[in-house]
């Protein structure tokens, strides 16, 4: 009977093909919503995998997290170097990396920091940054490029770049008189680091008109802070449980208003606020799937009239009305199964073809994984819905073939 159903479907291939496409596209959409959410969340979590605490001037935690690590939005206030110095000297702190933001090269963010950044920053499953070529910056007027930044700017080690103030693509105040030399290019990490241009705090200070420390006595350099103020700092602690207490201490820091956040917890908060949108998207994509399946229902119901002869022939050779019912249900099941499977295939095809674009635009690396249990559930739900909807035309065909018997008057 499956063979019969397949042949019957092939006979109506134009409308069947359209139905399958509608179901496939809607299934792709349904899965893509969930998959994008998961990928974005893992990606964000990967970016902050080695950092226990992020501190900055008083602002909302989500804003501080997004601007300091993901370069989304901008920081309005800075924290003083003194406060940073005070906090990093506390016994609970194992390491501290200052970062200063606000400049850009061709729209890519410049992150001014110290050499410690390369030592302590961790991504993914606690991996360190590694160099594709060259090495970390050591002195002034040197920069290190992220993998994506290097390919976007089309630069290699030894080339010069100039930094513009502000984070837009075009800036009116380019620091042309201070070309920086590229000394290193990082390997791809799949995090926003790929998009960034890393330089030392002192280099940035010089560009912004500060004094060059080289003119001073080298033995005295520790007394001079590399910058008056910084945008934020990443902290690593000696023991994780200390994080909450230190966070409270920093949030109530007396000399100046500061914000400290636990990256993991703040991300969770962010996802919680975004959940409404996710759910809206899921509802919308479910509706689209339903529309796809209703399209199938329409086509099946419309075809029943012209298929009455087919049913009469089947009954003449001994098919019962139950067989007619089963035939239509198996047709619908085949349609939804093929539709769901093609939807899944389309999803992988899209992931595969768009992975490059998505990474260069957003820094998010799509990982190819087998469908998760949740995705199988969604697919299963689509097929079950298709099955339930098919009971309508199947029932009508059943009634019709009972009433028609062998005499069809069309």
């Amino acid at each position, binding site marked *: 009977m499956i063979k*019969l159903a397949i*042949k*019957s479907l*092939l*006979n109506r291939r134009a409308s069947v093909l359209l139905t399958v496409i509608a179901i496939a596209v809607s299934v792709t959409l349904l899965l893509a919503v969930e998959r994008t959410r998961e990928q974005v969340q893992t990606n964000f979590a990967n970016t902050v995998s080695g950092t226990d605490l992020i501190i900055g001037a008083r602002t909302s935690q989500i804003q501080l997290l997004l601007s300091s690590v993901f370069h989304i939005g901008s920081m309005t206030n800075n924290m003083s170097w003194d406060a940073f110095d005070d906090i990093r000297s506390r016994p609970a702190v194992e390491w501290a990396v200052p970062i200063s933001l606000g400049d850009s090269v061709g729209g890519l963010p410049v992150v001014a920091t110290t050499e410690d950044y390369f030592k302590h920053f961790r991504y993914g499953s606690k991996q360190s940054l590694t160099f594709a070529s060259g090495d970390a910056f050591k002195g002034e007027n040197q920069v290190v490029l992220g993998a994506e930044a290097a390919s976007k700017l089309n630069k290699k080690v030894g080339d010069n770049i100039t930094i513009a103030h502000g984070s837009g693509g075009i800036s009116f105040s380019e620091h042309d008189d201070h070309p920086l030399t590229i000394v290193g290019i990082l390997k791809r990490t799949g995090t926003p680091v790929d998009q960034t241009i890393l330089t030392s705090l002192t280099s940035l200070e010089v560009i912004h008109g500060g004094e060059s420390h080289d003119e001073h006595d080298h033995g005295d350099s520790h007394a001079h802070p590399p910058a008056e103020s910084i945008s934020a700092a990443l902290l690593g602690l000696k023991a994780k449980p200390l994080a909450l207490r230190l966070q409270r201490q920093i949030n109530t820091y007396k000399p100046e208003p500061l914000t400290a956040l636990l990256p993991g917890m703040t991300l969770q908060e962010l996802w919680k606020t975004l959940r409404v949108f996710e759910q809206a998207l899921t509802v919308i994509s479910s509706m689209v799937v339903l529309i796809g399946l209703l399209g199938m229902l329409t086509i099946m119901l419309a075809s029943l009239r012209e298929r009455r*002869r*087919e049913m*009469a*022939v*089947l*009954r*003449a*050779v*001994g*098919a*019962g*009305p*139950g*067989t007619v019912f089963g035939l239509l249900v198996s047709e619908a099941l085949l349609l939804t199964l093929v539709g769901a499977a093609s939807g899944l295939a389309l999803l992988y095809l899209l992931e595969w073809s768009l992975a490059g674009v998505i990474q260069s635009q957003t820094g998010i690396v799509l990982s190819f994984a087998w469908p998760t249990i949740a995705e199988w559930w969604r697919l299963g739900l689509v097929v079950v819905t298709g099955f339930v909807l098919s009971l309508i035309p199947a029932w009508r065909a059943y009634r019709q073939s009972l009433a028609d*018997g*062998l*005499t*069809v008057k069309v």
Partner: protein
Amino acid sequence: MIAVSVRDLSFSWKRNEPATLEIPEWQVQNGETLLLRGPSGSGKSTLLSLLAGINTPQKGELSLFDTPLSKLSGRQRDRFRADNIGYIFQQFNLLPYLSALDNALLACQFSSIRKERIAKAGETPEASAHNMLKRLGLSESQIQQPAHSLSVGQQQRVAAARALLGAPPLLIADEPTSALDAEHRDSFIQLLLELSAKNNTTVIFVTHDAALSRYFDSHVELNDLNKAGVTA
């Protein structure tokens, strides 16, 4: 054995309506070929749906080969039809998307008994259907063609092959030649009867054309058979 045995049969499509069909007594002998003639509205399709086991009479007895159809469930009647009755429609006998061969093979789809009969003759269903189609004058290429690309005459031959495949004891043909011209009609009937005779198949051939009666053992007017509206 008696192929068709009817006694005091009465059937109406709706309850509490006068009967469309009332047959006090009617018998068709096994192996007999019978022309059943009736103008439209004489209860022809009603009688055929009763014989095929699609509907059952409200009153009376209808037995095919000593099996009382009214004692069978709907499912059993479907099974009985698959095993014992070859049925040819006026036209549109075939599933347009199947090849001529697959259409003929539909006869075996729902009947294991037909398959057994073919196996007893030492053939596979495919070979038997193939031979039958060739015997009915279809070419090799036509046998493989999808049914919708065949002419009406060829389609009726495929329908005949399907009806006769697996040697069912009863063949019901509902005006199968009405779409054919005179020449094709006569050769079709002759071939149909010739193939039926080989298996001793009982033939009930319904038509409005009395001129065809010369081909058949007996000729019955449905109006003589059906007493509905006469006594009421």
